[in-house]
């Protein structure tokens, strides 16, 4: 299956790109995707950062199982307002 990942803020700078498409084995979780992305973008591992996870614009947990064509975003601590 394929999922689309968008990067924002510090993670976009660290990844060096705003979006990637990633091929994953069926049954992969958000955590699995994060591990795969680190192989391609070593700088994504920001020391001490606490992330939230969104799939198709809804917050999910790290063990959320992904589906084909999902849009996944790793959300650094927000600072709107």
């Amino acid at each position, binding site marked *: 299956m394929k999922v689309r990942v*968008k990067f*924002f*803020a*510090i993670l*976009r*700078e660290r990844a060096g790109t705003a979006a990637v498409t990633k091929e994953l084995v069926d049954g992969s979780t958000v955590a699995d995707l994060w591990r795969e992305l680190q192989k391609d973008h070593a700088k994504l591992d*920001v*020391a*001490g*950062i606490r992330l939230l996870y*969104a799939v198709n*614009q*809804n*917050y999910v947990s790290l063990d959320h199982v992904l589906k084909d064509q999902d849009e996944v*975003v790793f*959300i*650094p*601590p*927000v*600072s*709107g*307002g």
Partner: protein
Amino acid sequence: MFRVTHQPIDLQTLVDYVTDPEAGAIVTFIGTTRNNNEGRKVIALDYDGYPEMAEKELARIGADAARKWQICRMAILHRLGPVQIGEASVVIAVSAAHRDAAFADSRQAIEEIKKTVPIWKKEVYEGGEVWIGTQTGQPLPGR
């Protein structure tokens, strides 16, 4: 109206939007960009956001508030992109039959915005820049 925008926010547009014949009060909150943070002089600000989800979260915040208090109408606009010092980065407007509900609703909304809406502020200083919230400073190249 729950939106993100790259344009300067016009307060009157939001006031007009929430104006309601059943309302006895309209409260507006304007978050503005400050020229200093923790003792450092801020020379520029830049907001990044995940627009589709940010608008969804703003709407959820509005729906939560409407369940809790008797309000008439509500609008939230948040800036994305570069924002000049002193400009509005976020504006909330809420109308209600009575002022207590309007004050409480706008207060809850700004607190929630700071916790759950996927928007990120970068502060640029002399000699560096920081994504606020991440505590990971990155010196500018060549400094």
